[in-house]
């Protein structure tokens, strides 16, 4: 199926991933994830630990760990990524699909200046006629992300966490990828910097018509800064839709609970708190039914036994789209 | 693959230990019994590995050598481990000047040539197995001290140790109850490695005449005695050489295997 101009940039259908577990048993980590991303659009995959959000991103990049088995279909501009071998990936990774990782310090080469690291993708994929042109392009890319000449010539350890993350972003967009996957920095950056990073990404996406897939555990932070949200829990998509609409009217009990669980600034010291009961399930503990059933206020026996189908917007027996 | 190494190491080490223990109660022939009639007898039914230049049964001497190896290993590693661990823990608990003193001392001790130490001790106390054990043991102290200090320091920085301080526990209590238990895997692994080194060192010292003295049997001693007879009766050198190799190999494999099994579960996050 070739992709026409209106076809989604990324089309994930019924993605299953099984990971090797202890003692030979395999863990069913992703249980049928469906996602769609168009050009110029930003989608945030939001979930807690074990939700499968990082694994989904890894599957899209072809970076699943050894021993992992993937099923379903990941169509990138019409091509099935799951069917690719390493040679096939070489042309895509870093060139048409780029990833910005969580931990900038480990993702950057400590021995190389930042400028040359940004030049690398340009040279490897032969996007510039010569080194001088590459250097010029790299400099302007770094300037675009807010790093000046002096910072460009520095080594990674000489820069702050925020600056390193910007450098990573510059590296990622250097080859003008169609799809950018960003694993949101968690403890590495503070709220203010995270917000700046997200805003920068949004601008770049709009400027270049890229698709942005953002991985995050922070609903509050990302919700207002992306076009669409997909809420994951226990390896499944619980709810998906336009960010603004989802915030105003969350329909899935999990989304509602997540939203209600956060205290509100300005609501005062004695504001009522609505904690979710129970714990986030570990992969090995997930049963057959809806993963949220043990903690869901609306759960029925059907919910515990049968996983609800995801209809493109919602996966719930008790609430309809 | 890894598992095979561990099992092989465990088997070899167990074999070594059993041989040593067995030699206390039984050897095919008395290791020190001289019988010039059987001088340099080749391997046969009666003497499985033949006899040496004094007609002593090689196999029995080999078994007795295993006993020496174990004894030296245990005592030397014991000295190194206990003294070194104590110093390392002290340095990590006290920090500051105490730590600087211990570490500089360890640097000096480590730099002091082991052989020179053995020679000095032999000159002062007379050569023998005791001197060998003392020299090897003392030389192992700085390595243990540095290793323990490094590891203990990282455990001291952990939150649960801070929590123990908040709970009002003093440094000795914390060292004994929190830090030391975390070091056990490290000590076990390092202990097996040091054991192998001790066996090699003892063999070397005995070969040079500074360790076990005749008529006591040790593998190094056997090697030394076999030296001049290399062309006449190569099995005299081969037997102790193979024994040393197997013992060291077994201990190293065991150590590696233990490290793989014990450490990853306790990786600090």
């Amino acid at each position, binding site marked *: 199926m070739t992709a026409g101009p209106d076809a989604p940039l990324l089309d994930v259908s019924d993605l299953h991933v099984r990971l090797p577990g202890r003692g030979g048993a395999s863990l069913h980590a992703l249980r049928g994830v469906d996602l769609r991303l168009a050009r110029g659009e930003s989608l945030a995959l939001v979930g807690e630990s074990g939700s499968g959000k990082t694994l989904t991103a890894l599957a899209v990049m072809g970076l699943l760990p050894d021993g992992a088995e993937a099923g379903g279909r990941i169509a990138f501009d019409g091509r099935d990524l799951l069917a690719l071998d390493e040679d096939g990936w070489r042309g895509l990774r870093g060139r048409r699909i780029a990833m910005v990782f969580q931990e900038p310090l480990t993702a950057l080469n400590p021995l190389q200046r930042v400028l040359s690291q940004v030049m690398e993708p340009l040279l490897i994929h032969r996007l510039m006629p010569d080194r001088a042109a590459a250097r010029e392009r790299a400099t302007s890319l770094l300037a675009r992300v807010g790093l000046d000449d002096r910072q460009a010539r520095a080594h990674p350890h000489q820069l702050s966490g925020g600056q390193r993350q910007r450098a990573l972003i510059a590296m990622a967009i250097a080859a003008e990828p169609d799809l950018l996957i960003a694993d949101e920095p968690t403890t590495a950056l503070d709220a203010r910097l995270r917000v700046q990073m997200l805003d920068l990404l949004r601008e770049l996406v709009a400027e270049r018509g890229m698709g942005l897939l953002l991985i995050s555990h922070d609903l509050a932070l990302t919700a207002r800064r992306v076009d669409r949200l997909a809420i994951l829990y226990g390896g499944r998509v619980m709810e998906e839709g336009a960010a603004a609409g989802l915030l105003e009217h969350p329909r899935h009990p999990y989304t509602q609970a997540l939203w209600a669980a956060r205290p509100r600034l300005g609501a005062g010291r004695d504001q009522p708190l609505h904690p979710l009961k129970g714990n986030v399930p570990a992969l090995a503990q997930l049963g057959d039914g809806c993963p949220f059933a043990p903690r869901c206020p609306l759960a029925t026996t059907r919910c515990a036994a049968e996983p609800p189908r995801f209809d493109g917007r919602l996966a719930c027996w008790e609430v309809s789209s | 693959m890894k598992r095979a190494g561990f099992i092989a190491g465990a088997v070899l080490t167990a074999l070594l230990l059993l041989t040593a223990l067995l030699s206390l109660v039984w050897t095919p022939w008395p290791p020190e019994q001289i019988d010039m009639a059987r001088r340099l007898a080749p391997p046969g039914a009666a003497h499985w590995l033949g006899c040496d230049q004094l007609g002593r049964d090689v196999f029995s001497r080999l078994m007795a050598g295993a006993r020496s190896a174990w004894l030296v290993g245990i005592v030397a590693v014991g000295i190194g481990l206990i003294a070194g661990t104590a110093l390392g823990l002290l340095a990590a608990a006290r920090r500051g000047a105490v730590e600087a003193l211990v570490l500089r001392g360890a640097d000096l001790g480590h730099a002091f040539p082991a052989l020179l130490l053995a020679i000095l001790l032999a000159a002062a106390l007379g050569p023998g197995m005791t001197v060998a054990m003392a020299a090897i043991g003392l030389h192992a102290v700085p390595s243990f001290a540095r290793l323990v200090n490094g590891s203990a320091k990282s455990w001291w920085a952990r939150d649960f140790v801070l929590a*123990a301080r908040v709970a009002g526990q003093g440094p000795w209590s914390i060292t004994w109850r929190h830090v030391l238990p975390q070091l056990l895997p490290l000590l076990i692994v390092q202990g097996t490695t040091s054991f192998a080194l001790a066996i090699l060192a003892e063999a070397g010292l005995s070969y040079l005449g500074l360790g076990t003295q005749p008529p006591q049997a040790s593998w190094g001693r056997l090697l030394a005695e076999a030296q001049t007879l290399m062309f006449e009766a190569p099995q005299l050198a081969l037997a102790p050489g193979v024994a040393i190799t197997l013992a060291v190999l077994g201990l190293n494999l065991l150590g590696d295997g233990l490290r793989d099994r014990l450490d990853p579960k306790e990786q600090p996050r």
Partner: protein
Amino acid sequence: MSAAQPSSFPTPPASSPATSTATSTPTSLLRVEGLGQRYAGRTVLRDIDFTLSPGESLGVIGESGAGKSTLARLVMALERPRFGRVLWDGRDVNAMPTRERRALRPRVQMVFQDPYGSLDPRWRVGRSVMEPLLALSMSELQRRERVAEVLAAVGLEPDAALRFPHQFSGGQRQRLAIARALSTRPRLIVADEPLSALDVSVQAQILALLRELQRRDGISLVVVSHDLPAVEVLCDRALVLRGGEAVEQGPAARVLGDPQHPYTQDLLAALA
């Protein structure tokens, strides 16, 4: 709940002897004067002043590297300050002999950020929860009873005491850490980023637990956090740190609702 409280539980002090020449009022639970710290020539904390009365809670806000954790460690007397003083119940904690300081520890406890690191992985959790009680003269039976009490107070089963940390989830481990901090009936608990390492759906549980403990037992909290809504829920007062200095402090509602300093305004804008 057990009937008789062991007489060894810390009670409010009688007027303190001449171990300090503090001019602080006898009612202040915690007082920090001109506090500053340096590491390897770098000043990480400068000129911090605040006072906490019994039952009052303070939120220390700021980004990473601002000195929040250093402040927490200084308040807990886990480090000696380069400048200034830390006073517990009016007594200079760093000017007293070690033995005396250790005797005061039951009154001031701590909850750490990382639920995976704050419990000894080789100890059953009951033993970890009991550890602060070892500083008090109680019988073993009384200690065990107290452990069961605090486990119940944080919503855990008594038989949890027999298990090991790796058998619990992050949220449960944080509850265990709180139980440990509660064991000696402290007047003050310093919580260093108690929520940030937890999943979002679990954070609210721990937040609710902490608030409940404040209300029920009148415990003072010093909450170090970058989570502003959580600080609003737990704290009467707030102190904003930036680069080791206090740029703003005052009633939490005012600092968070109507910030005066541009940095604080910036921090709040990021959350909007």
